[in-house]
């Protein structure tokens, strides 16, 4: 590649001594050029899709006595609550995917955390805060170890977290003895503090607590992703790891942190899971990682890493929730529901492809 170059063969163009730029700028576009316009459209694409699905849902919603069932207070609350665990996991997954990785272990970490929450409170007599703290720590540590393995040993995160999935499920089965640990509330032994039931409740009896947590975490993640140096590093590594390294980005540290965040948020989801179902079962969260990835993809984040947004992921998660809900309200056959969800994911991915070919 690097041959010596003799003078005077600069693309046949007469060489000027003046410092003025001659020609060039083949790819420069005037302000608001096509590339940027398309970028702009796609930035709101997932929100637009969410809006479309929302309106469609209203249109096809079953009615009873003139009331649009889909729009009922309770139903909207149910939607956000039902999607909150997937949504929280998807927030962590977004960081990982932006980094150019994938985390298959989050569903299993959710199960492990649900089991941990139940066991610690019911069998080990932990209070709520100590139990939650221990579970969050386990989740974050588990993620951090995976991050370290993929960053330091250079193993693809797909493989590391595939192994992590097995390990987390195994730990959950061992910890629980293979059975679900029911959570009974009360002050006695083998009972959890009743205050933990607040996860199953709602604020003002209307907004479910998990939904509030989901939205809160989502908004916090949006801020982190927009405002922090950490987020810039994530984008840089996901876009071009070598370039990031050469620009002084602490690649190892960022990767460990990102997987730790994914593990931590999976643990949060696991605690919520245990609180909602009053049980921690080692099989909880099976396949949730795939739903989370779907939310991320529908949200417009590229699996290649480096481009995407948290707002898109939140929109993607809510879109999936609305889709699930409206299909169920219309009593669409469970198998057909799967087909429709698959088509939506492919459509989202297709839009991404389209974006890249236009810009």
């Amino acid at each position, binding site marked *: 590649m690097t041959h010596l170059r003799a003078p005077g063969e600069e693309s046949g163009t007469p060489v000027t001594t003046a410092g003025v730029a001659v020609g060039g700028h083949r790819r420069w576009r005037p302000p608001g050029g096509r590339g940027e316009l398309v970028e702009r459209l796609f930035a709101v694409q997932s929100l637009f899709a969410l809006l479309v699905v929302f309106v469609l849902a209203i249109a096809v919603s079953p009615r009873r006595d003139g009331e649009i069932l889909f729009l009922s207070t*309770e139903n909207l609350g149910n939607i956000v609550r039902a999607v909150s665990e997937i949504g929280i996991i998807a927030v962590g997954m977004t960081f990982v995917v932006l980094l150019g990785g994938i985390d298959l272990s989050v569903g299993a970490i959710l199960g492990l955390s649900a089991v941990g929450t139940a066991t610690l409170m019911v069998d080990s007599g932990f209070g709520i805060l100590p139990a939650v703290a221990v579970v969050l720590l386990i989740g974050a540590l588990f993620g951090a170890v995976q991050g370290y393995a993929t960053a330091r040993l250079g193993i693809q995160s797909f493989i590391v977290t595939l192994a992590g999935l097995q390990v987390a499920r195994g730990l959950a089965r061992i910890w629980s003895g293979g059975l679900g640990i029911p959570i009974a509330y009360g002050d006695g032994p083998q009972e959890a503090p009743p205050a933990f039931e607040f996860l199953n409740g709602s604020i003002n009896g209307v907004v479910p607590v998990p939904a509030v947590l989901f939205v809160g975490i989502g908004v916090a993640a949006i801020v982190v992703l927009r405002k922090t140096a950490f987020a810039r590093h994530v984008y840089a590594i996901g876009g071009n790891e070598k370039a990031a390294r050469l620009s002084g980005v602490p690649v190892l540290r960022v990767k460990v942190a990102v997987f730790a965040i994914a593990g931590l948020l999976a643990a949060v989801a696991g605690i919520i899971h245990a609180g909602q179902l009053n049980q921690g079962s080692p099989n909880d969260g099976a396949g949730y990682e795939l739903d989370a990835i779907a939310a991320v993809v529908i949200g417009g984040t590229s699996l290649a890493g480096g481009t995407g947004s948290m707002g898109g992921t939140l929109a993607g998660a*809510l879109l999936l929730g609305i889709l*699930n809900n409206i299909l169920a309200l219309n009593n669409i056959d469970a198998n057909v529901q799967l087909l429709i969800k698959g088509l939506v994911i492919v459509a989202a991915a297709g839009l991404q492809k389209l974006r890249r070919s236009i810009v």
Partner: protein
Amino acid sequence: MRTRTVLLALLCTGALVTSTACSVQKPSEGGDATANCGAGRDFLIGMSQANNAEPYRQVMNNDVRTAAKSVPGLTVVVADAAQDNSKQVADVENFLTQKIDLLIISPNEAKPLTAVVQKAYDRGTPVIVLDRKVEGEAYTAFIGGDNVAIGRAAGEFYANTLLPDGGKVLEITGLPGSTPAAERAQGFREGIAANPKVDVVASQPGDWLREKGQSVADALLKAHPDAAAVYAHNDPMAEGAYLAAKAAGLHTKVKFTGIDALPVPSGGIKAVEQGRLAATFQYATGGREAVDLARRILVDCARDVPRTTTLDTMRITRENATEAYARLGGGA
């Protein structure tokens, strides 16, 4: 540009949440079940199934659907939770949004579904729980089989009919830790107690799976080639055991029994009819009984339906297999 995007995002999520908070609260449905009843009206029944992928639950769904067809005014919608507790909770909630008139639920697990079943019950929706129970008292009726009784029936069949002169029995159990497996084992031992010459010499888990039953039986038959019979906790494992014996050339010598007796081509009744199994014991789905109860609650406005219905088992042998298959709706 990015700021606007995020603002929009916040607005949308915000709108979703606040519209939840702000929209008008519907007056509570309240009232008791009997207020919404009577002949000549249309009723919507929500059937929340734990997992459609199991043949037993498929048959249960079919039984419910078939039975509902014969009652004018009843419409049944089925939701499949695919073994996911959270999904089943959402399914029930969606049924409530649809304002179903009655809920039939076959819960995936007891504890996680107790709260949502209670929610439905508290709103005045009659709830019929099928097969597996939920905790507490917040349901209208429970219909289920008695696994101890089924095991006992099987044991008595061994003691009196299959092995009156005694013999060695190999047991292939269901998933360790599951209640039906424990009860079917316990009942069987009660049943064979009458004949001390019947002896369970080995017991290994087959996890309800045909292929697992086959590999377990393969090993057991090697260790006990003189075994007289294999008692499997369900029909697929019994079929698997039969295949293992056939491979070892023991299938004519050893007798096999299963449990479930599903009226489907791949089910135990056919296996008995075709001579692979000596007997199987019906574990009824309760689908018909559930619809019958629903009819009484909705159409007849009955208030005093039985709180617990325990389904009888039926012994199916070569003699009654064909007839039972037809009666239970096989081939329909």
